[in-house]
């Protein structure tokens, strides 16, 4: 497989068309579900690329967290309401309750089905502090918002939103979902998949296309920078989890002490009462405005930065999976090459049949048997290679397309986060200013 240095959509589309054509040739030989999935994926990508539409027809809200206590454990569920006009759905409105584990399950299924699509990260599973933090109000609210964003991003994705498991997640009642979870590839086949994946990652990829190496470098740096920005934002504003107070919060505490002292002072004075009380008023106003500023920054900016720190990890995982797919393909190609070499060797050496000769076998016959076996194996390999070649092609293309999509989203999110930050800070200064303006008019 050649790497493509330019990613003009014409070439990509051309490739896709070629892929579809190839696949249609293999259609009669389809015998596994994932081949079918690959086929559907390609068709959808084709459609997506040509049409480039983003019509939102699935609206989801995640709200109303509730505590549930069973004999074994305590957990929180969230209400998930779906409103849709899609024909794939039987009804136009659904309401279900889901817990964090269900979201995790969904993410896992989506990753399995679409290994090289970029899926929004979920909020973190555990908090550093310990078990009790799970039930803290702030924490639950932050998590709820993140879960809301998670499902909506999936709903907006042209491929992911049509995923069957996603539909089940949105519509099934609790017991239905439980039984659905139990279906799917059995334990053994899943284990086989894992083994293959591990083997592939150990082998490593030989000829990774240039653009994916570039992507890797980008993600490395991006993740670093996001981590730093996340820390900076939390340094300025109160971090919801840590007991350590931060700059603005301590500033606020100091200012809160100031106002009353000026008021107290005004009680001792006669001539200075007016300006002292005015300053006390300004300071109290400043405190109120600062609290609004802190709330604004905590709600908007901090979560977005944090999400993109997690995103960097998601991206790394996606790139790894792509690499694994390519590695698998490469290993088959290597295997084929070594079989070919074996076949060549058959013609030239008799040494391996000496032993067979001791057992009374006809060396010529044994040779022919071996050759036949090799031919058979090579044929199988070639088929598999063909299949894997398509898989790699598909994976690369979906990743490339989704990468662009992710970048657009990221730019939009980051831009809006920082514009919000600028707005919050501007409003802060404007409001403080407004109260102070009464001062200079005071007569000396």
């Amino acid at each position, binding site marked *: 497989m050649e790497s493509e240095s330019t990613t003009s959509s014409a070439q990509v589309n051309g490739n896709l068309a070629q892929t579809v054509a190839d696949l249609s040739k293999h259609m009669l030989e389809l015998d596994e579900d994932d081949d079918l999935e690959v086929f559907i994926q390609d068709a959808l990508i084709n459609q997506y690329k040509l049409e480039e539409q983003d019509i939102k027809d699935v609206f989801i809200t995640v709200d109303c967290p509730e505590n549930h206590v069973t004999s074994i454990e305590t957990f929180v569920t969230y209400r998930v309401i779906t409103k849709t006009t899609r024909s794939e759905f039987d009804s136009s409105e659904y309401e279900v309750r889901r817990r964090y584990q269900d979201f995790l399950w969904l993410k896992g299924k989506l990753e399995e089905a679409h290994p090289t699509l970029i899926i929004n990260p979920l909020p973190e599973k555990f908090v550093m502090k310990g078990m009790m933090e799970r039930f803290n109000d702030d924490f639950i609210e932050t998590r709820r918002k993140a879960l809301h964003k998670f499902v909506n991003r999936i709903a907006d994705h042209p491929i992911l939103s049509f995923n069957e498991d996603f539909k089940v997640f949105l519509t099934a009642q609790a017991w239905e979902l439980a039984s659905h979870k139990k279906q799917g590839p059995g334990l053994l086949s899943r284990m086989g998949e894992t083994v293959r994946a591990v083997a592939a990652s150990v082998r490593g990829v030989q000829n990774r296309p240039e653009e994916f190496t570039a992507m890797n470098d980008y993600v490395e740096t991006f993740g670093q920078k996001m981590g730093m920005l996340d820390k900076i934002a939390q340094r300025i504003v109160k971090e919801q989890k840590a007991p350590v107070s931060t700059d603005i919060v301590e*500033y606020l505490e100091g200012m809160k002490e100031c106002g009353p002292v000026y008021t107290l002072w005004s009680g001792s004075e006669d001539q200075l009462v007016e300006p002292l009380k005015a300053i006390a008023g300004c300071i109290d106003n400043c405190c109120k405005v600062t609290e609004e500023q802190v709330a604004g920054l905590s709600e908007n900016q901090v979560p977005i930065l944090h999400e993109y720190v997690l995103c960097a990890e998601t991206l790394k995982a996606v790139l790894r999976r792509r690499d694994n797919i390519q590695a698998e393909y490469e290993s088959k190609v290597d295997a084929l090459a070594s079989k070919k070499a074996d076949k060549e060797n058959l013609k030239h050496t008799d040494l391996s049949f000496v032993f067979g000769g001791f057992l009374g076998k006809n060396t010529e016959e044994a040779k022919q048997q071996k050759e036949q076996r090799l031919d058979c194996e090579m044929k199988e390999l070639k088929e598999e290679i063909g299949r894997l070649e398509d898989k790699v092609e598909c994976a690369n293309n979906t990743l490339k397309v989704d990468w662009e999509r992710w970048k657009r989203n990221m730019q939009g999110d980051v831009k809006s986060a920082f514009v919000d930050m600028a707005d919050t800070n501007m409003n802060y200064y404007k409001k403080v200013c407004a109260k102070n303006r009464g001062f200079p008019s005071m007569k000396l």
Partner: protein
Amino acid sequence: MRGSEILERMADSTSEDVAVVGNTDFAAADLHNNTNNTVTGYSCFSKTMMEEGVPLLKKMEISVSETEKRTGKNAVNMQEVYTVYLIETRPVDAITEGQSTAPDSLWRRYSEFELLRNYLLVTFPYIVVPPLPEKRAEFVWHKLSADNMDPDFVERRRIGLENFLLRVASHSVLSKDKIFYLFLTQDDGWKDVVYDTGFQAKADSRLKALNATFRVKNPDKRYTELKHYSDELQSVISQLLRVRAKVADRLYGVYKVHGNYGRVFSEWSAIEREMGDGLQSAGHHMDAYAASVDDILEEEEHYADQLKEYLYYSESLRAVCRKHELIQYELEMAAQDLVSKKQQREELTTGTVRTFSLKGMTSKLFGQETPEQREAKLKVLEEQIVEGEELVKTSNAECDEYVRNAWVDIDRFKEQKNQDLKEALISYAVMQISMCKKGIQVWTNAKECFSKM
């Protein structure tokens, strides 16, 4: 005796215009001949008023313009490093006449300023004497150093010392003091001159003053109120300064952390295609924002210094009140003493024992005194009573005099304080407004950059 000397002068002086009480007048030319002039301070009623009732500052330009580090041996013969301040003076006339002559100058160190102030405190106890800038840095926050050698501290102290001199020089009473004039103009031997005045002997001991505070029977209500006010002022300003230091520290942190944004944006812009430019320029604005805090906090420090001056002024106020208590106490003691002496005389004369006394008991037990002994005792008593009466008279006069003079200066101080603090508060608010305007500017620019990403 001192008491009679005072009475004599009382008789001589006219009762009007006692507000200006000071030393004898002098002309610059007489300075070097008058080194023996003793200064007697408040108890001296000067018949000669000042030729012009104009404070020194109107006639002379004063500034503390430079600082220098020196090394030398101190009292225990150890090497020390200290700072000296250059005092420059120039007669105002020199400039108005179109010429500008070079100013006279001399170097003084902080301890000499302290000596001058202590002298003024003792010599003019009824005046609210301007304070010196703090001896050691108090109410610091992390950026400010507590080190006395730190250049910022030295600079702020220079300004404070100049302010002190200007305040003294503009005071109608203090500015006329000879020792003050010499401080500004006499390079060598000034210290000796000060010590020669013997002012240290006149300083009231702390213990005496404390004693008086608790024993005064009829405290003057106005002074009690004044003392409460000075306590409240001190408490309130201390609280403010303490909180302000904490707030300044945090504000500094908030601004500086935004500098980190600038750095990360810059690094991040290197890997972005479309967002790169926007990030880069936004980063510059973040850096500018972080840097702007230095100016803001410098102005805030100036405001804090203005508050500090009045914090230390409250100490001066308290000193005036304490002195009054002492005088009042001495008056009460003198009066009490007189009463008891008169009683004793009565007893001796009439032979009755009104109050229990050991003498009375012993005389009863061991027999009465001889008439000669009694005569002698009576005579001594009579003398003492006469003295006592005089003492009471002078103490009374002292007290009244003190109260009158002090109250004039207290009124002056109140006016000055109200004016100064009002200005300080207003300029603080103005400074806040300017800080907000800068903030709005920076974030508007940053927003533009972000929007273009």
